[in-house]
C-alpha cells in the first residue's frame, strides 16, 4: 500500500478500501483500489483492481502434524502420520495405521518449532505420548485418536474436496519414510488432479487424486488448501491395480506414480 501511495501522490485521496484480517496463524490482506483521474474523476484503470495476498504461518504445522506409532520391545515403531484437529488434542489418522487396538499406541511429540529448521536425521530420540482410539471408520479408512494434552492456539478448520477445484495447488504435510525409522516433517505441494468416488463394500466416498508421488509413512497426512486455509483431505495411499504387485528391494514398482489417493476431510466432521 505504501509503495502505491508514494508512486501516486494523489492516490491517498482516491477511493481505497483496506481490509486486514489477522488470525493467530493466518494473515489475509485484501486491497481494493479504485483509481480515478484527479480532475475529471474518470476511472483510470477502467475496472476495480483486486489484490489478494495470503501468508500462512507454516510453523503451526510443526506443532499439529505428528507421527503415530506403537511401542515395541525395540523402541517405537513409527507407522504413519496424524494431525491434531481439536484443542483437546483429538488426532485424525487412518484406520490402517492404528489397526484394531490402542495397546501401546503412541504419538510422538513435535521435534521442531520452525519449519525452516534443519531436522537432524541422526537424532533418534523421541517423546512418545500414549494415545487412545476414540473412533474408527473401517469403510472410509479413518480413525480419531486422542492424547491427554491441550493445544493452545488456532487450528486449521476442516473443509472438503468440494471446496477446491481441479488444478488447484494444495499442500501435503506428513512424514514420508517414517515407517523406515526416518522422522522428517515434509511439505510437498501438488495440484488436485481429479475428484473421484472410491468404493468400499459398495459404499462410495469422495476422494481426490493428488499429482504427487508419496511414500510409506505418509498415510494420514493432511492436505491443506492455502486458498481457503482449510484442511481439505487426508492421504490414504496410492492406487495400485488389483491391489497386488511385487517387491523389488522393498519397493513395489506399481506404487511409483504421481496419483496419490486422498479422502475428503468432510467425513472427519461426523466422527468428532
Amino acid at each position, binding site marked *: 500500500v505504501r509503495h502505491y501511495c508514494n508512486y501516486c501522490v494523489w492516490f491517498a485521496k482516491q477511493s481505497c478500501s483496506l481490509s486486514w484480517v489477522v488470525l493467530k496463524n493466518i494473515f489475509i490482506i485484501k486491497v481494493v483500489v479504485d483509481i480515478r483521474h484527479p480532475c475529471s474523476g474518470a476511472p483510470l484503470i477502467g475496472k476495480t483492481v483486486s489484490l489478494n495476498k495470503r501468508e500462512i504461518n507454516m510453523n503451526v504445522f510443526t506443532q499439529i502434524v505428528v507421527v*503415530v506409532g506403537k511401542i515395541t520391545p525395540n523402541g517405537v515403531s513409527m*507407522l*504413519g*502420520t496424524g494431525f491434531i484437529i481439536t484443542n483437546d488434542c483429538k488426532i485424525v489418522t*487412518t*484406520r*490402517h*495405521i*492404528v*489397526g*484394531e*487396538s*490402542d*495397546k501401546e499406541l503412541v504419538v510422538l511429540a513435535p521435534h521442531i518449532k520452525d519449519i525452516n529448521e534443519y531436522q537432524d536425521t541422526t537424532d533418534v530420540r523421541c517423546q512418545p505420548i500414549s494415545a487412545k*482410539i*476414540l*473412533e*474408527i*471408520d*473401517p*469403510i*472410509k*479408512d479413518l480413525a480419531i485418536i486422542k492424547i491427554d494434552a491441550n493445544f493452545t492456539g488456532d487450528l486449521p478448520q476442516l473443509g472438503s474436496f468440494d471446496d477446491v477445484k481441479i488444478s488447484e495447488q494444495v499442500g501435503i504435510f506428513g512424514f514420508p519414510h*517414517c*515407517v523406515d525409522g526416518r522422522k522428517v516433517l515434509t511439505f510437498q505441494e501438488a495440484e488436485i488432479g481429479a475428484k473421484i468416488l*472410491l*468404493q*468400499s*463394500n*459398495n*459404499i462410495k*466416498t469422495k*476422494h481426490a487424486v493428488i499429482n504427487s508421488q*508419496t*511414500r*510409506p*509413512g*505418509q*498415510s*494420514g497426512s493432511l492436505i491443506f488448501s492455502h486458498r481457503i486455509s482449510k484442511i481439505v483431505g487426508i*492421504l*490414504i*495411499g*496410492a*492406487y*495400485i*491395480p*488389483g*491391489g497386488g*504387485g511385487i517387491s523389488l528391494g522393498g519397493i*513395489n514398482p*506399481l*506404487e511409483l506414480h504421481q496419483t496419490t*489417493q486422498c*479422502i475428503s476431510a468432510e*467425513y472427519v466432521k*461426523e*466422527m468428532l
Partner: protein
Amino acid sequence: MNIPNDTLENWLSELKPYQKNSLEKLIAEYGDEEAAKRWLSSYGPSNIVHFGGEKNNTPFFDRFSEEFRKFICGDEFYKKEREQLLVESPIAKQIYISVVSAALGATLGYTATLLAPAVSVLLYSVGKMGLNAYCKSS
C-alpha cells in the same frame, strides 16, 4: 438376559451417525451377519496400497462371533460381565452394546469402538430370533 426384540433402526440409532449410515447401507446390500463381517474386516477402498500401518490378515470374524455366542449364551467366561448387565433393569440397548463390545474387545484385543456396530447388528438378530433359538442354532 432378555435382549429386546426391537427394530433394526432402533438398534442402529444407538450408534454414531457415521457408523449407522454405513451399517444401513451394508445391511441393505449384504444382510445382517455379512454386514457385521464386512464392517470388521474393511480397510477402506480396494485397489489402494496403504502408506503406513501393519495390516492384520488374521481371519477375525469367526473368533468374534464365537466370543459373542459365548457371552450371549451364558458361557462361564463372561459371567462377571453379564452380572454387570443385570444390575440395571430395564437394560438400555446402549448399555448392552457397550458392555458386550468392551468384554469382547478385552478378550480379542480389539478396541470396543470398532466392535460396537457389529455387536449391535448381532444383538438385533438375537432379539429377533429369541435367545434360546439363537443359542441352539449357533
